[in-house]
């Protein structure tokens, strides 16, 4: 059975809509990431799911129990959940006592508490910090204590709101490693909100994209990043080549799509006459000086307009009747002597293109 089932969940504050008719399912033991820009209601959704706030309308079922409003049931189910907040708050007591709170409140015996705390501290690598006052810890250490504290009660779902938003890259890496371990070793389902798409991709089995107070798309990381279903999602996940076009021909699965004056070959299921957006990932485009013999069905000539170094890569923007972005390694850019103003050939496969519907 689905662990958390959310239907038509809406939340308003003072008449302002924060979340609009959210439908979402969380399964037992899965790792689910909510991604979306800041201010789209990720935190509010997490707080609703953790039963800290009540929705304006809609329903939340946990393990078949309706926990939308009933106080007693919300309290009982809350004890099967836990939350690590974006800026975790620790109590003014030792690290050990901080982690012990949840267990004491559940009337666990002190020898069991000790055992569980030691395990939790080991998992986050903080055993030697037991006696320290938690208020004196750094941001990353506080985060780890908060994770241990949320994990020690063996929740069925652990919510994490932006678990690494305030941390430096090294600490972020450490926290992600801890989360990856939890995912592997525990039965706990992880539900994390993050604005860092790549983090969602690294840690989650399933991703939900929250844009403009709605869940726009839910799917595997591959679905979300390669097959976005709407322009908003495509833009959010950073597909940079988004070109308006019209399907003009169809030969079973091979379509011809007209973009400006160019015809592109695309493998897809759209109908002739449909208005579409053509999405091409920059990394799927191959550049060369002249048209090469290759399996790529699409080949366009253009002039290099701009070159931007990106670490070991170079981002190349060419004009071939419309702007097209691609990347090459810095080495090949130097070898091939790419320069602004030079004419080059861009090629990409018919399967590298993803089409989404265009309404206007």
């Amino acid at each position, binding site marked *: 059975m689905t662990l958390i089932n959310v239907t038509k969940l809406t939340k308003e504050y003072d008449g302002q809509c924060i979340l609009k008719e959210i439908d979402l399912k969380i399964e037992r033991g899965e790792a689910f990431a909510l991604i979306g820009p800041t201010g789209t209601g990720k935190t509010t959704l997490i707080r609703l799911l953790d039963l*800290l706030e009540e929705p304006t309308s809609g329903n939340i079922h946990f393990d078949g129990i309706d926990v939308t409003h009933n106080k007693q049931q919300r309290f009982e189910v*809350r*004890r099967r959940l836990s939350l690590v907040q974006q800026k975790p708050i620790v109590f003014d007591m030792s690290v050990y006592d901080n982690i012990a709170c949840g267990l004491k*409140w559940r009337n666990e015996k002190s020898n069991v508490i000790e055992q569980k705390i030691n395990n939790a501290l080991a998992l986050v690598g903080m055993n030697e910090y037991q006696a320290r006052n938690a208020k004196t810890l750094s941001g990353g250490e506080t985060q780890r204590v908060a994770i241990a504290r*949320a994990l020690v009660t063996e929740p069925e779902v652990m919510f994490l709101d932006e678990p690494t938003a305030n941390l430096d890259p090294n600490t972020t890496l450490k926290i992600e490693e801890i989360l990856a371990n939890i995912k592997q070793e525990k039965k706990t389902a992880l539900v994390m909100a993050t604005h860092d798409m790549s983090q969602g991709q690294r840690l989650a089995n399933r991703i939900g994209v929250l844009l403009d107070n709605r869940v726009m798309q839910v799917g595997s990381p591959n679905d979300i990043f390669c097959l976005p279903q709407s322009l908003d999602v495509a833009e959010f996940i950073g597909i940079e080549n988004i070109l308006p076009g019209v399907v003009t021909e169809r030969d079973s699965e091979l379509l011809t799509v007209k973009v400006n004056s160019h015809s592109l070959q695309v493998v897809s299921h759209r109908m002739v006459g449909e208005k579409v957006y053509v999405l091409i990932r920059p990394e799927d485009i191959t550049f060369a000086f002249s048209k090469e013999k290759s399996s790529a069905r699409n080949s366009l000539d253009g002039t290099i307009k701009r070159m931007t170094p990106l670490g070991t890569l170079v981002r190349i923007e060419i004009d071939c009747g419309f702007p097209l972005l691609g990347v090459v390694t810095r080495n090949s850019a130097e070898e091939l002597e790419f320069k602004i103003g030079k004419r080059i050939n861009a090629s990409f496969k018919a399967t590298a293109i993803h089409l989404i519907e265009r309404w206007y």
Partner: protein
Amino acid sequence: MENLWQGLIKALQLIISLDPEVIQIAGRSLWIAATSCILATIVCLPLGSIIHFNKFYGKRLLINILQTLYSVPTVAVGLFVFVFISRAGPLGSLGIMFTPIAVIIGQVILITPVITGLTVSALSGVDKGIAETAVSLGANRLQKMILVLREARYAIISAVIMGFSRAVSEVGLSLMIGGNIKGFTRTITTAISLETSKGNLELSLALGMILIFLALLVNIAFNQLQHR
């Protein structure tokens, strides 16, 4: 001026020699105020918590009234208790007029608004996230309240110190319903008042110094507690 100087010297002698009367009066002041303070605290912590953790109509007004009562005149409280426990009053049959119990009742009434009000502000000073974090970790209402009280412990200790200070230093109430009976209800403040009017400045000064010294000791003790 010479009087004052000689008085100070005499006062020091009284203190250093552990004059039995001085010690007895100081001890009585201390235990009466301490008992009042403990009783008031037992009432005020739950009361303050209930006020802080519940939303109800008139909450703001109630807090305002409590804060106003911080400065209620001690004689007004004395009069109020007097009316109740005098022979003709509703509690007259208890026969507690002019006993330490009467003084303690008066002091509890006097300092309850102080400790309650300051407890409410102490709890309001705790980060809202503390209560929420507790709830998310599975605390029930009572467990959440205890945790927040614990987080506010230093501010609450200050509230209790304020209550104790007010109790140990008041004089009007002890005079009115305690009666300043030698060896029974005479406290430092009532003794000072009496001895001064008798012209016995040495004893008054000695008692005054002890009162300040006591206040200092209490503060140091609580400070130690805070820094532990």
